[in-house]
Protein backbone atom coordinates (compact mmCIF):
# COMPACT_ATOMS: atom_id res chain seq x y z
CA UNK A 1 0.00 0.00 0.00
CA UNK A 2 1.14 3.54 -0.65
CA UNK A 3 1.44 6.12 2.10
CA UNK A 4 -1.63 7.76 0.57
CA UNK A 5 -3.73 4.62 0.92
CA UNK A 6 -2.65 3.88 4.50
CA UNK A 7 -3.22 7.49 5.48
CA UNK A 8 -6.81 7.33 4.25
CA UNK A 9 -7.30 4.09 6.18
CA UNK A 10 -5.76 5.77 9.22
CA UNK A 11 -8.31 8.59 9.06
CA UNK A 12 -11.17 6.11 8.64
CA UNK A 13 -9.97 4.10 11.65
CA UNK A 14 -9.82 7.25 13.75
CA UNK A 15 -13.35 8.30 12.74
CA UNK A 16 -14.79 4.86 13.48
CA UNK A 17 -12.93 4.71 16.79
CA UNK A 18 -14.30 8.06 17.90
CA UNK A 19 -17.88 7.79 16.67
CA UNK A 20 -18.66 4.08 16.84
CA UNK A 21 -16.20 2.15 18.99
CA UNK A 22 -15.44 4.41 21.94
CA UNK A 23 -18.41 6.69 21.21
CA UNK A 24 -16.47 9.68 22.48
CA UNK A 25 -18.02 11.82 19.70
CA UNK A 26 -15.14 14.26 19.64
CA UNK A 27 -15.67 14.90 15.94
CA UNK A 28 -19.03 16.42 16.77
CA UNK A 29 -17.62 18.82 19.35
CA UNK A 30 -16.45 22.41 19.04
CA UNK A 31 -13.79 21.79 21.65
CA UNK A 32 -12.12 19.20 19.42
CA UNK A 33 -12.14 21.24 16.22
CA UNK A 34 -10.84 24.32 17.98
CA UNK A 35 -8.00 22.33 19.53
CA UNK A 36 -7.33 20.64 16.21
CA UNK A 37 -6.92 23.96 14.40
CA UNK A 38 -4.29 24.92 16.97
CA UNK A 39 -2.53 21.57 16.64
CA UNK A 40 -2.53 21.74 12.83
CA UNK A 41 -0.97 25.18 12.89
CA UNK A 42 1.90 23.83 14.96
CA UNK A 43 2.07 20.70 12.86
CA UNK A 44 2.65 22.78 9.74
CA UNK A 45 5.41 24.58 11.58
CA UNK A 46 7.22 21.59 13.06
CA UNK A 47 6.55 19.16 10.25
CA UNK A 48 7.58 21.78 7.72
CA UNK A 49 10.85 22.06 9.57
CA UNK A 50 11.41 18.30 9.69
CA UNK A 51 10.70 17.89 6.00
CA UNK A 52 12.22 21.17 4.84
CA UNK A 53 15.55 20.23 6.38
CA UNK A 54 15.27 16.74 4.91
CA UNK A 55 15.36 15.13 8.34
CA UNK A 56 12.54 13.02 6.95
CA UNK A 57 12.39 12.31 3.23
CA UNK A 58 9.63 10.58 1.29
CA UNK A 59 9.47 8.17 -1.58
CA UNK A 60 7.77 10.14 -4.35
CA UNK A 61 6.15 6.94 -5.61
CA UNK A 62 4.35 6.41 -2.30
CA UNK A 63 2.69 9.84 -2.16
CA UNK A 64 0.39 11.94 -4.34
CA UNK A 65 3.02 14.63 -4.69
CA UNK A 66 1.06 17.59 -3.41
CA UNK A 67 2.93 19.32 -0.60
CA UNK A 68 2.09 21.85 2.06
CA UNK A 69 4.97 23.64 3.77
CA UNK A 70 7.44 21.03 2.40
CA UNK A 71 5.44 18.11 3.77
CA UNK A 72 3.30 15.74 1.72
CA UNK A 73 -0.44 16.32 2.20
CA UNK A 74 -0.63 12.75 3.50
CA UNK A 75 1.06 14.00 6.66
CA UNK A 76 -2.10 15.97 7.44
CA UNK A 77 -4.10 12.75 7.34
CA UNK A 78 -1.49 11.01 9.47
CA UNK A 79 -1.60 13.83 12.00
CA UNK A 80 -5.39 13.94 12.02
CA UNK A 81 -5.53 10.22 12.72
CA UNK A 82 -2.95 10.48 15.49
CA UNK A 83 -4.69 13.39 17.18
CA UNK A 84 -8.22 11.98 16.94
CA UNK A 85 -7.19 8.55 18.24
CA UNK A 86 -5.20 10.06 21.08
CA UNK A 87 -7.96 12.39 22.20
CA UNK A 88 -10.65 9.72 21.86
CA UNK A 89 -8.68 7.40 24.14
CA UNK A 90 -7.96 10.30 26.49
CA UNK A 91 -11.68 11.02 26.88
CA UNK A 92 -12.54 7.33 27.10
CA UNK A 93 -10.03 6.71 29.89
CA UNK A 94 -11.24 9.86 31.58
CA UNK A 95 -14.75 8.47 31.66
CA UNK A 96 -13.56 5.09 32.88
CA UNK A 97 -11.29 6.35 35.60
CA UNK A 98 -13.73 9.03 36.63
CA UNK A 99 -10.98 11.52 37.24
CA UNK A 100 -12.32 14.41 35.25
CA UNK A 101 -13.28 17.48 37.19
CA UNK A 102 -17.02 18.06 36.94
CA UNK A 103 -16.50 21.80 37.00
CA UNK A 104 -17.11 22.17 33.29
CA UNK A 105 -20.28 21.07 31.63
CA UNK A 106 -21.61 19.68 34.87
CA UNK A 107 -25.32 19.26 35.03
CA UNK A 108 -25.42 19.70 38.74
CA UNK A 109 -26.29 16.18 39.81
CA UNK A 110 -25.10 15.31 43.27
CA UNK A 111 -23.95 11.84 42.31
CA UNK A 112 -20.54 12.96 41.15
CA UNK A 113 -19.07 12.98 44.61
CA UNK A 114 -15.81 11.44 43.57
CA UNK A 115 -15.43 13.77 40.64
CA UNK A 116 -16.44 16.88 42.54
CA UNK A 117 -13.96 16.09 45.29
CA UNK A 118 -11.29 16.68 42.74
CA UNK A 119 -12.67 19.89 41.34
CA UNK A 120 -9.93 22.46 41.35
CA UNK A 121 -10.84 25.75 42.90
CA UNK A 122 -10.01 28.43 40.37
CA UNK A 123 -7.31 30.61 41.78
CA UNK A 124 -6.24 28.13 44.42
CA UNK A 125 -2.57 27.69 43.78
CA UNK A 126 -1.58 24.24 42.66
CA UNK A 127 0.99 22.36 44.66
CA UNK A 128 3.01 21.73 41.53
CA UNK A 129 3.76 25.39 40.95
CA UNK A 130 7.46 26.06 41.29
Amino acid at each position, binding site marked *: *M*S*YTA*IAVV*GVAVAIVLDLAVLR*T*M*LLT*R*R*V*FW*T*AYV*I*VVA*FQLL*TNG*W*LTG*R*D*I*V*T*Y*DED*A*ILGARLVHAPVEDLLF*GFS*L*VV*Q*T*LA*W*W*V*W*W*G*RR*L*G*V*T*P*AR*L*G*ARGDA*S*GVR*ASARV*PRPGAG*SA*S*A*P
Partner: protein
Amino acid sequence: MLAFCLLGTLPLEVWLGVRVYRQWRRLALALLCVVPVFVAWDVYAVDAGHWRFDPDQTVGVVLPGGLPLEELLFFLVIPVCSVLALEAVRRVRGWPVGDER
Protein backbone atom coordinates in the same frame (compact mmCIF):
# COMPACT_ATOMS: atom_id res chain seq x y z
CA MET B 1 11.66 20.18 17.60
CA LEU B 2 10.52 17.86 20.40
CA ALA B 3 11.89 20.26 23.00
CA PHE B 4 10.08 23.12 21.28
CA CYS B 5 6.80 21.22 21.54
CA LEU B 6 7.28 20.27 25.19
CA LEU B 7 8.46 23.69 26.28
CA GLY B 8 5.85 25.42 24.16
CA THR B 9 2.99 23.55 25.83
CA LEU B 10 4.39 23.52 29.36
CA PRO B 11 2.74 26.86 30.24
CA LEU B 12 -0.64 25.25 29.59
CA GLU B 13 0.01 22.82 32.43
CA VAL B 14 1.71 25.21 34.80
CA TRP B 15 -0.22 28.44 34.34
CA LEU B 16 -3.45 27.47 32.68
CA GLY B 17 -3.78 24.55 35.07
CA VAL B 18 -5.05 21.96 32.61
CA ARG B 19 -3.77 19.20 34.91
CA VAL B 20 -2.82 16.82 32.15
CA TYR B 21 0.54 15.70 33.53
CA ARG B 22 -1.10 15.40 36.93
CA GLN B 23 -3.42 12.80 35.45
CA TRP B 24 -0.38 10.81 34.46
CA ARG B 25 -2.08 7.46 34.77
CA ARG B 26 -4.87 8.44 32.40
CA LEU B 27 -2.31 9.94 30.04
CA ALA B 28 -0.18 6.80 30.10
CA LEU B 29 -3.18 4.57 29.37
CA ALA B 30 -4.26 6.75 26.45
CA LEU B 31 -0.74 6.70 25.05
CA LEU B 32 -0.56 2.94 25.47
CA CYS B 33 -3.62 2.61 23.23
CA VAL B 34 -2.25 4.85 20.48
CA VAL B 35 1.53 4.58 20.38
CA PRO B 36 1.74 0.89 19.35
CA VAL B 37 -0.59 1.52 16.41
CA PHE B 38 1.50 4.35 15.06
CA VAL B 39 4.83 2.69 15.78
CA ALA B 40 3.58 -0.30 13.78
CA TRP B 41 2.53 2.00 10.93
CA ASP B 42 5.92 3.69 11.08
CA VAL B 43 7.87 0.43 11.07
CA TYR B 44 5.88 -0.70 8.06
CA ALA B 45 6.39 2.62 6.28
CA VAL B 46 10.13 2.57 6.84
CA ASP B 47 10.28 -1.05 5.74
CA ALA B 48 8.25 -0.28 2.61
CA GLY B 49 10.43 2.75 1.93
CA HIS B 50 7.62 5.31 2.21
CA TRP B 51 9.92 7.58 4.19
CA ARG B 52 13.32 7.53 5.77
CA PHE B 53 15.21 9.46 8.40
CA ASP B 54 18.49 11.20 7.80
CA PRO B 55 21.10 9.36 9.92
CA ASP B 56 23.18 12.54 10.11
CA GLN B 57 20.32 14.47 11.73
CA THR B 58 19.28 11.94 14.32
CA VAL B 59 21.22 11.01 17.46
CA GLY B 60 21.95 7.58 16.03
CA VAL B 61 20.05 5.36 18.45
CA VAL B 62 18.04 3.03 16.23
CA LEU B 63 15.31 0.95 17.84
CA PRO B 64 14.28 -2.53 16.76
CA GLY B 65 12.22 -2.12 13.61
CA GLY B 66 14.52 0.52 12.22
CA LEU B 67 13.01 3.57 13.90
CA PRO B 68 15.28 6.24 15.32
CA LEU B 69 14.79 6.96 19.02
CA GLU B 70 13.40 10.37 18.09
CA GLU B 71 10.50 8.75 16.31
CA LEU B 72 9.33 6.97 19.45
CA LEU B 73 9.70 10.21 21.40
CA PHE B 74 7.69 11.93 18.64
CA PHE B 75 4.82 9.52 19.27
CA LEU B 76 4.92 10.35 22.97
CA VAL B 77 5.36 14.12 22.67
CA ILE B 78 2.82 14.90 19.95
CA PRO B 79 -0.10 13.08 21.60
CA VAL B 80 0.71 14.75 24.92
CA CYS B 81 0.72 18.14 23.18
CA SER B 82 -2.61 17.43 21.53
CA VAL B 83 -4.16 16.47 24.88
CA LEU B 84 -2.79 19.68 26.36
CA ALA B 85 -4.34 21.63 23.48
CA LEU B 86 -7.72 19.98 24.01
CA GLU B 87 -7.70 20.57 27.75
CA ALA B 88 -6.54 24.15 27.25
CA VAL B 89 -9.48 24.87 24.93
CA ARG B 90 -11.83 23.26 27.44
CA ARG B 91 -10.35 25.32 30.21
CA VAL B 92 -10.59 28.61 28.33
CA ARG B 93 -13.94 28.15 26.59
CA GLY B 94 -15.71 25.82 28.99
CA TRP B 95 -16.94 23.56 26.17
CA PRO B 96 -17.71 19.96 27.10
CA VAL B 97 -15.26 17.29 26.01
CA GLY B 98 -17.42 14.26 26.69
CA ASP B 99 -15.95 12.93 29.90
CA GLU B 100 -17.91 15.18 32.23
CA ARG B 101 -20.21 13.59 34.74
